[in-house]
Structure formats: structure tokens, C-alpha cells
């Protein structure tokens, strides 16, 4: 049962990811990306990583995607803005070929890779729970946690500074 669920979610994720890349309309891309995030959260739940699954929904689908959608609608980009051009077809083919080659190389490398497996003796299924990770985050990882707050300060100052309208500017 779980096995088939894994394959279904994998298929769904890859399908949605391809949808993000190949949709003509940016709004469809965003919707496909949201689907990707939800199916990835399904994967996290299968792995019993509940904290990551919840944060993935809250941060990605809840905050980042809303921001993307907001900007797309703000700029009124809900149409195909990329007109077909000869040059762009060439870059598209070249991009797809080089990407495909990279995938082949990576699969070839990873095929024989020794990654090990789980250890049934010392396995702990509780590590992905909120209680455990929260405790780690506020003890061992306190310093990086504080650094993340500095990062948000930078992002906030930068975004407000760049996004703010100049007084003499005409457009919105």
C-alpha cells in the first residue's frame, strides 16, 4: 500500500514539476508548483518527517507561492509573454539536451553509488516530530537560528528598499 503510494506521489511530483517548466501561462506554472509542494509534503509524511511536511506547506505553499501569485497578478502577466522566436527555439532545444545529458550522467554516477540503508537496531522514528526538532532548534542550533533572523532582516530591508515607489515615479 505505502509502496504504491510512494510511486503515485513520485509520479505526481515529477508530472507537476514538468508542468511548471512547460506551462505557457505563468499562473498555471504557479499552480503546478503548488501541486509539487503538496505532493512533496506527502512524501515527507510517508517518511514520518511531520515537522518538515507542515513547514513545507506553511512556508512554501502558504507564503512563497502567495508571493509569486501576488507578483504575477500585480504585474498582470497572466498571458504568454514569451513570443516564439527562432533564437529561443534553439536555446530551448540546447537547454533541454544539456539538461537531459546531465540527468543521464547523474543517474549513471548514482546507479552504483553505495548509500547504505536504515539500521533496524537503532532506528528512531520520532526524530521528525515537532517536539524533537523544536528542542534541537532551540538548543544545539540556536546560533544558526539567530543567523536566520539576521538573514530575514537583510531580506526585509532589501525588499522594502527595492520595492518602494519613488515619489516621482509614474507607474503604480
Amino acid at each position: 500500500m505505502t509502496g504504491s503510494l510512494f510511486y503515485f506521489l513520485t509520479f505526481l511530483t515529477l508530472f507537476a514539476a514538468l508542468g511548471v517548466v512547460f506551462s505557457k501561462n505563468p499562473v498555471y506554472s504557479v499552480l503546478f508548483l503548488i501541486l509539487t509542494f503538496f505532493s512533496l509534503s506527502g512524501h515527507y509524511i510517508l517518511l514520518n518527517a511531520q515537522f518538515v511536511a507542515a513547514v513545507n506547506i506553511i512556508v512554501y505553499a502558504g507564503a512563497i507561492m502567495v508571493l509569486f501569485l501576488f507578483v504575477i497578478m500585480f504585474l498582470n502577466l497572466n498571458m504568454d509573454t514569451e513570443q516564439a522566436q527562432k533564437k529561443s527555439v534553439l536555446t530551448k532545444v540546447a537547454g533541454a539536451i544539456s539538461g537531459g545529458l546531465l540527468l543521464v550522467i547523474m543517474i549513471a554516477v548514482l546507479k552504483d553509488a553505495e548509500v547504505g540503508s536504515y539500521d533496524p537496531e537503532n532506528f528512531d522514528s520520532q526524530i521528525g516530530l515537532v517536539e524533537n526538532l523544536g528542542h534541537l532548534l532551540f538548543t544545539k542550533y540556536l546560533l544558526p537560528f539567530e543567523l536566520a533572523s539576521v538573514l530575514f532582516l537583510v531580506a526585509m530591508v532589501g525588499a522594502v528598499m527595492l520595492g518602494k515607489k519613488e515619489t516621482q515615479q509614474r507607474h503604480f
Partner: protein
Amino acid sequence: MRLSDLYFLMPLLILVGAATLNMLVVAVKRNHKVIFGITIVAHLVAVFTLLQLNGSSYQIPPFFVMDGWGIFNLGLILLTSLFVTLLSYAYFEQREERKEEYYLLLILATLGACVLVISQHFMALFLGLEILSVALYSLIAYLRTRERSDEAGIKYLILAALSSAFLLFGMALVYAVTGTMSFPEIGVYLQSVSELPLLLLTGFGLMIVGIGFKLGIVPFHMWAPDVYEGAPAPVTAFIATVSKGGMMGLLIRFFSQADAYRYANLMLIFTIIAIASMLAGNLLALRQKNIKRLLAYSSIAHLGYILVAFLAGNRLGVEAVSFYLVAYFITSLGAFGVVALLSDTERDADQLEDYRGLFWRRPATAAVFTAMLLSLAGIPLTAGFVGKFYILASGVNTQQWLLVLMLVLNSVIGLYYYIKVIAAMFAQTKSVQERRKVLHPALSFASGGAMAILGLLLIWIGVYPTSLVQLIRGLLATFMTTF
């Protein structure tokens, strides 16, 4: 987390404090002078607290380590950032955009670089790198109304985000194989295996993409000329020095703590990168008419030189890297400082034409610029010469004849385009009238003072390098007991 950790993190805490204070001051009243003063004082205090830590070796497990190499890099970054601040005042005073946020972002970018050089754990590395990058996105696009700056901003944004995705995938693979994210523990793992597992090599390869992007070395150098041209001149100076130097510091820490110098295939990758960077940087610079782009290609080549010393992989090599970084920082700051000094309100002084006959109009500025260019070319009596000599010595010491040969060859090629700029400055021109309105002299006092100090430092290190060498040796004594 102990209380004594805070003492050793004091320089970083002071920077954060200064950023917060700046925000509060902006909230009350926007005043360029006050913000500028706070930034200068914060840097000086941070350097002062750093001096108190000198000679110590302290671990904040598992994220940070404060050893000689870390303290050297922290000092270098803080002083460089101080000079960038000094150069920024006159530059931004002429511009009508908001000036105060610039200092806030500059302080936080410096903080990111500081975190980067003392980290010994992937998480601290990544967060430091991202603080630096995110601050740089906004700094590069700072002059919003200029066409070039938004283009440079989006290019840097997309490529930096892409390269950090590669870096992360590499880190994930390394974590997959070794089961740890801290450098010393990766070193322990590497000791236990006879040869590099394929997956780990893939991971390191992907990490090199992310690191190479920040260093701006071939083949990850495409962004450098565009971003150098589009960014405001003081920000360009910051990218050329702090951002690249911070990454170099991290690279050396990672390689020495994980003892990755042993692997011939990793060394081969870096050898190819070093040779390609030297050649591409110098050859592409030959036909440049734009000073900022010329300096961008020149900095690609200089990072290639630094990699030669890095590849030596011994104590002499690290000393050579340290010395060259100091020389390169001083010259880059000086060169971009001149560009910032000559820029007017409409655009940066980046065309070769802007410098024609400069000597007859502004002799002091032209003299400093000449000294900087000669140092970049590696002419005797400048810091650049001693640095290059040091690198050659480390290359010869480890019998890397190909690299040494390429270094010498490239120095000769490089001479051509530096001399070209110098020749333009001394050329007699008919139109001697100053086309820019001259600023109030008090405004450029900070810039002028900074330039004078940089020029003197350059000559002093070039003539009497012993004191700097001894300083570096003393600091490195607590680093790398393995060599």
C-alpha cells in the same frame, strides 16, 4: 552555547548591533552623516575587539572556530569594509536616492562574510553565504533608476540562486555519504576510506560550482563583468574583495580541516580552473575599453593566481594566499576607489576616455591609480610584486611547473592592458576643462584620506614586506597543525 562564546563572537555582535542602531536612527530621522559615523565607529570597535582575541584558538562546536586563519580573515574583511564605507560617503552624497539603507546592507553583508570565514559546519557556511548574497542582491541593484543596475541585479540574483542550489545539492550528497555536516568530522570520515567514493566526488564537484561562482573563476565567471559594470563603484569594490576573499578563506579552511588536498582528481579540477581563469581573464581584458569590466577580467585572472598558491596545499601556500589577498584587497579597493572618486551624478567613470589626460587634471588621483595598476601588474616596489613572488615561490616549492609557467606568461600578458590605461592617463589632451562640477572639498575628505592610506600601504608593503609576513606567520601558527 556558553557565555564565553559571546565574547569570541563579539565582532559579529557589534556589527548586528550597529545595523539595529542604524535602523532606529533611520526611523527617527534620515541623516547621511550620522549613519556614516555609526558605521565607521562600529567597524573600528569590531576591529578593536578582534585584536583582543588575537592569539587564541577557540571552538564553538559544531559551527564556528576562531583560530588564526579566522582572525586574519575577519580582520581583513572588517578593514576592507571600513575602507569601502569611507569611499562610499562622497559617492552616495552626490546621488539623490536614499543613502541610509546602503550602510545597513553593507554592515550586514560584512557580517555574512565574517560568518562565512569562521564557519566549520555546512549550516553556518550556508547561512553566512546567503546573508552575504541577499545583501549583495539589494546592494547591486541599489541605484534603482539606472538601467544597468537592475540588469546587473537580476543577473546576479538568478545566477547566485542557481549556484547556491548546486552548492546545496552537493552538500546533501556529502551528508548522504559521510552522515555529518561539520568539516572536521568529514575529515575523520575521509581518513577512514582509502579512496574517494564516487558519490562524494559528485558532491564535491557540485559544491565547486557554488564556490566557483562566488569566487568568479572560469567557467563560472560570466556574471563578473556585467555585475561589476552595473553595480555602484563602492559595491563593486566590495564584491571584488570581501565576497571573493570570504569564499577563499572558507575554501582553504574546508580543504585543510577535511584534509582534501590528498585527492589528485580534486586537485586536477582546481588546476584546470586556475589555468583557465588566468588565461581567460587576461585575454578577455586585452580589448576592454571599459575600466570596470577590465578590472573584472583582471580580478578573474588574480583569483587564478591565488588558486596557484592554494594548490600548493602547504603552509607556504596558505601564507602566500594570505599575503596575496592583502595585496589584492588593497589594490582593488584603491582602483575602484578611484573609479568612485571620479564618478559624477549621471554615471560611473568607467570609460577609458574618462581617464585620458587625468594626470594633467588631477595628478594625485592619477598617481594613486597608477600605483594600483602597477601593483595589479606586479611591478617591483608594490605589494602586488611581493605577493606574486610569494605565489611563485610556493608553486616552485611544490614543483608545479605548469602552473608557474602559466603564471609568469599571464603576468606578461596582463602588463599590456594595465600599461594601456596608465598611458591614457598620461596622454596630453586638448580639452583640459573639467566637465564635472567640483564637489565641496570637505565631502571628498574621507575618500581622499582613504585613498592616501591605501597608496601608502601599497608602497610600504611593497618595500618592506617583512612586517606583514611576520604578522601572517604569527596568526597562522594556531592554524593547520597538520602541515
